[in-house]
């Protein structure tokens, strides 16, 4: 049998040593009534060649971003992934290890996490970052729970500029502790600061904003921080770290907790997962943080080494009193991000930002020049923008598929009020030729 090493002769030899007549005898504790008396109803085993053919067939039915000009965003982005990442993460020593419970035999993983924590702290402008949460949405949920436990307050002032998919996840996590999200409206694409000021009270644990927000617009974090802090609430910012080589980091603008989807940092889109939940905070909040943390220490010879630390926050020690239930996180995605940031380095991330912002603005100008199409909001944006279309966005998107263009995300399914809105994302990978062709196809589709 494939992937099973023992030969029938060895199996017999082992049974003899155990003193059991058969494997059946070893299953004595499984009562007869519990036994499955038939084979599992699954397709028969497939040989590798047949299986590859089958899976290639399935894969071929999907729109892959090598064959399409991809303007889809809303939380997952087609940023370029440098070649070394896949080579390095595929090394079995990284790939087939687990949580570094034995640090002496896991220094490779521990060092990469320590590097990752350093990079994420630097990009977000925060003091400390953890080893990762599942994705941006679950990171944000953990941040809301943490703000609740730090402040003892049960309300969160929630900007409508936050990704609605994140809102759904946070609401799921708020169910148990019975926390409430108080929605704060937008004014022309960004959080209405007057409304925010009215929403934040002495009962507010956190103000949550996204930067740039779901519609691509840049929020005034400084003002949001002032409003939050005036009432003793924390400012929680969801930000995509790939943008933070160019954009002012939230930590410099008053954020207390910064979370984000790190997929843009070298992690494949892969139909939305696995992703990379970034989580960073101010130093004084570290003992309330969820998830793993790696710290530096020394070994008994005085040599530098790294360990999982402050573990008394965690479920395997603290059980029901843990700061979170998270165990397995996304260490390998964090490694992808670490290698990505190493490759892009001090100046490359800024260049990615410069290319992105220039191409996004060029695209916005071209698309908004199509008769009947206009920018939905006037607020400054970064790499994503919302368009109002004169025809149903679903149909326009369908029409552009013929030109091998994934034109954007129709927002009707996120918000009924946005039934004419198409959300368009532009990364450094999009070319002028693709943008021009898309503008032409868009013009034809809405004519």
């Amino acid at each position: 049998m494939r992937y099973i090493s023992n030969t029938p002769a060895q199996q017999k030899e082992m049974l003899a040593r155990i003193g059991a007549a058969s494997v059946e005898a070893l299953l004595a504790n499984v009562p007869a009534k519990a036994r499955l008396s038939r084979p599992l109803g699954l397709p028969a085993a497939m040989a590798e060649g047949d299986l590859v053919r089958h899976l290639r067939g399935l894969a071929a039915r999907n729109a892959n971003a090598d064959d399409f000009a991809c303007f889809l965003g809303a939380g997952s982005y087609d940023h370029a992934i440098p070649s070394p990442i896949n080579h390095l993460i595929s090394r079995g020593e990284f790939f087939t290890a687990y949580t570094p419970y034995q640090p002496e035999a896991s220094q490779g993983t521990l060092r990469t996490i320590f590097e990752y924590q350093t990079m994420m702290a630097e990009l977000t402008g925060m003091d400390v970052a953890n080893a990762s949460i599942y994705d941006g949405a679950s990171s944000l949920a953990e941040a809301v729970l943490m703000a609740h436990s730090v402040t003892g307050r049960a309300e969160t002032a929630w900007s409508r500029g936050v990704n609605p998919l994140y809102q759904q996840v946070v609401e799921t996590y708020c169910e148990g502790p019975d926390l409430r999200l108080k929605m704060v409206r937008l004014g022309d694409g960004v959080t209405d600061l007057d409304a925010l000021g009215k929403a934040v009270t002495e009962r507010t644990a956190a103000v949550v904003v996204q930067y740039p927000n779901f519609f691509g617009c840049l929020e005034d974090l400084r003002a949001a921080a002032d409003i939050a802090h005036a009432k003793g609430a924390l400012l929680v910012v969801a930000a995509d770290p790939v943008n933070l080589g160019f954009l002012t980091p939230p930590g410099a603008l008053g954020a207390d907790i910064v979370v984000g989807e790190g997929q843009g940092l070298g992690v494949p889109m892969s139909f939305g997962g696995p992703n990379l939940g970034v989580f960073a905070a101010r130093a004084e909040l570290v003992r309330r943080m969820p998830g793993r943390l790696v710290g530096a220490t020394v070994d008994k010879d005085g040599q530098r080494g790294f360990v999982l630390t402050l573990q008394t926050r965690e479920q395997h020690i603290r059980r029901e009193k843990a700061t979170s239930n998270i165990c397995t996180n996304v260490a390998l995605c964090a490694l992808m991000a670490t290698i990505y940031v190493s490759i892009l380095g001090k100046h490359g991330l800024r260049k990615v930002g410069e290319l992105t912002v220039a191409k996004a603005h060029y695209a916005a100008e071209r698309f908004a020049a199509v008769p009947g199409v206009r920018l939905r909001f006037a607020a400054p944006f970064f790499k994503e923008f919302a368009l109002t279309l004169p025809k149903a966005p679903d149909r326009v998107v369908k029409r552009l598929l013929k030109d091998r263009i994934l034109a954007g995300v129709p927002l009707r399914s996120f918000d009924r009020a946005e039934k004419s809105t198409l959300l368009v994302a532009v990364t450094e990978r999009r070319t002028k030729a693709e943008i021009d062709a898309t503008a032409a196809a868009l013009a034809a589709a809405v004519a």
Partner: protein
Amino acid sequence: MEARAPYDKLIFELSAPGRFAYSLPALDVPSAEPASLVPAQYVRATAPELPEVSEVDVIRHYSRLSLMNYGVDTHFYPLGSCTMKYNPKINEDMARLPGFLRLHPLAPAAMSQGALELMWELARDLAEISGMDHVSLQPAAGAQGEFAGVLMIRAYHLSRGERRHKVLIPDSAHGTNPATTALAGFSVVQLKSDETGEVDLADLERNLDEDVAAFMITQPNTLGLFESKIHQITEMCHAKGVQVYMDGANFNAILGITRPGDLGFDVCHFNLHKTFTTPHGGGGPGAGPVGIKAHLAPFLPTPVVVKDDEGDYALDWSRPQSIGKLQAFWGNFGMLVRAYTYIRTMGPDGLRSVSENAVLNANYILKRLEGDYDRATAGPCMHECVVSARRQKKLGVSATDIAKRLLDLGFYAPTTYFPLIVDEALMIEPTETESKETLDAFCDAMVQIAREAETDPHRIHEAPVTTPVRRLDQTLAARQPVLKWRAPSP
């Protein structure tokens, strides 16, 4: 020790101003000053302090770091409860097919039919393997699968107008069980195990009442024992309206042998990174699908993958009683491709053979070690065994010491000090992918350590000496946390 020439760099320490590894396209759209596109306050004032390194620096650095790890590809990794089995390479090739890897989650459904079909098929396979009626693939890891399961149970009771506050959990449970339960807003009641290591039925009976929402147990349990009175347990629970949750961390023991659905469980989760060979990645990503019986279907996380009469697949969002979403998109899809590939590779007979060989291997280890270590339980075990280093402890050698010595002898260590109810626990899970030769070498090492505990404990206390670092000062790390690199002051 002089022989150790450790590599002791962090990527930041390789940095040289002006060096770079990236390759970016030239600007092909009309150039504009970034500050003319976004207001100045949004533009970073100073470049982030990130490394400036070459591509060869990156390759060599991370290759050298990788050599400081033990992984399944290089070492026997008998980490109990984690199912560190071989991760087939074909899974990796399949997950990297561009149609999967380069697919955006919000691509129109017509352009993601292959991905949706794979998810639909995998959910159906897992339902068959577990005897459950429906499976959600969305949870990102086991703990999130638990969370989804417990929330569905909560929603179920509430839909019947019952607000129950307690969840029962045995003292042998994984830490995620009580942590998840608390996260879902329940209080935890810990149940005792009986002298055989199974659930104490009398204690269960005492604690079952109308305020209990669920009983959460691991099957087989963390002692490696199949809970033989499981039908009685699920019946007792159901009689009080209590839902029964199975932590599926130990599913590798029961494939094709028994099914949680047939045992009366209402919910169970799977760890695809354990039983279904997706790689552990140094601590994830995993995937933690959750299976449920039909009465819980209205509460499944949204969206649900559905297939219509024409054979087209779609994401169904119209589920008003759903517990909601757990992550932004649909699940850790890359892991789902790997698990699907594995299930199709093995087929029904192969999967059963997996569990039979996992059980055989664990019992072989138990047999070979029982002369030198105390068994935690009597009789045969399932896919893992727990022994105690109680005897060695009397000689001044702890479970930790044994773990460290094993590293020197070329093996990763078993899980130590878990389950919590066994003193000096060593929890050993060999998995089916290991050969008798490997098991013998490991058992020889364990027996050697038992001898050394009697004759040369100093050697064990000094271990490890062959690893890149020796025993690390955990107290210092926690007392003065250093959680990121800082440039040395000039």
